């Protein structure tokens, strides 16, 4: 399940890219799920533990991955953190949902994160809960209801 928060706490991993750069483990890149994240988000192919083939940058290392890919990999490998969801793109939403179905993750959004576009607002696969008010969030409509409740009670 994804635990959604709208405010940071002292535990929020604000600089997940920097954290990843000094803490990633080579063996993570043997995991087919990590390889799929790299392929889906960065359109790049993992060649070996520390070599990635990027269509734009040629051969790069894990530190050169996008902030979105690094954060998703951390969500997969070190889910105990409270992640900064504001700093990753909406194109990471599908993977976040997938990881949230494997184990609990906590994500802070200081913007409205589009798990789905407007035309898919009723798609109910997010499987999240808002830690502020306990509201269940399955669709983007649920997400907005939880966010609106937060806004009306805090702003």
């Amino acid at each position, binding site marked *: 399940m994804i635990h959604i928060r709208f405010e940071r706490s002292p535990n929020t991993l604000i600089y997940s890219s920097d954290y990843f750069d000094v803490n990633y483990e080579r063996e993570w890149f043997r995991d087919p799920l990590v390889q799929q994240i790299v392929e889906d988000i960065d359109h790049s192919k993992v060649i070996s533990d520390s070599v990635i083939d990027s269509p734009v940058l040629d051969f790069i290392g894990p530190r050169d991955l996008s902030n979105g890919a690094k954060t998703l990999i951390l969500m997969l490998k070190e889910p105990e953190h409270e992640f900064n969801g504001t700093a990753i793109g909406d194109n990471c939403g599908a993977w976040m949902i997938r990881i949230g179905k494997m184990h609990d993750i906590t994500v802070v959004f200081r913007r409205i994160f589009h798990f789905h576009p407007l035309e898919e607002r009723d798609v109910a696969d997010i499987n999240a809960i808002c830690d502020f008010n306990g509201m269940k969030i399955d669709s983007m409509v649920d997400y907005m209801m939880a*966010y609106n409740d937060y806004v009306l009670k805090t702003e």
Partner: protein
Amino acid sequence: MKGKYRVRITAKKLQYDFVINRKYTLIRGDSATGKTSLYRMLELSRRGSTVQVSCPAECIPASALGEDWATWLKTRSDAIVFFDESDDYVTSGAFAEAAMQSDNYFVFINRDPLQSIPYSVNEIYELKSSGSMHFLQPLYEEDHSPIQPSCILTEDRRSGYTFFRKLLDGKVGFCIAASGKSNIYKVLLSDLVKDEDVLVLADGAAFGSEVGRVLDNKYVGYNKMRLCLPESFEWLLLHEKLFQKDATVRNALENTAEVVDTTYNSWEQFFYQVLRDATEGTPAYYHKDRLGRCYSEPCCVLGSPCRLQIHSSEDKVGDVLQLFDNVDFSRLLQDKPDNTKSTEA
């Protein structure tokens, strides 16, 4: 510092080519579109690498400002400073204060709303690419969808609200003042406008921090809403025929990016000053807190000879309303004997 700046960043495998139009620019969008690479290339260019940066102004990554960024921003001028998502201090009030006093341009690669920075809805971009070439594309397109509003929601409760309140006096439509841009979202959630067709009128020049969530309100669809974001209410008034012969006003409207300098933190402040200057010494002298009748009623002889005087048959309100593309005001403007629904938030 003022004007537009074309920025070209070139390396063997990556190129960026875009124009910076105003003091504040935001770059957002999906992950892995080249935002961090843009920032890294600026850093590499300062180490004498093969990255070439071509721009009439110096392009500086925030990492080059050092720890004391506040002093740097205060003492240096005429640079375009780029801030990456990792420069988290840009979300602070202290940073916003320093930026607003700074004679530099700012490019934020950041998805945080940055509520203390008065940035325009027109200067929020995402990076797109064609092969190795990257360019900026506006994130929000202007909304031209037709609407026949049943109420108007204005950002402030001062001149803009007064103008529309007066227009709707005795009519079936009603006008609500949100009393600040950050309140618009909350008013849209309230029973005041539930099931209404709402024309939201806000100053686009400084509405960048709010535009995302206001548009996202469509996910829940409490009401039909059209967001109209002229640069500012003063920008609307400057289009009245009162000012059609004023060359300074025409130039300000037609070449805004070339004439606004960094002492103005948004074009909203600039157009306010243009309107003040254009009306000084006339009965139409502009105050945000009280809007004179010169902007909505036929010209009189009180200020004669008045340099702004136009023929009494000219429709001043019509000049403003025609700037709203595909908005049919007829439903709002129907007469009703008892105007009971005019209200404030």
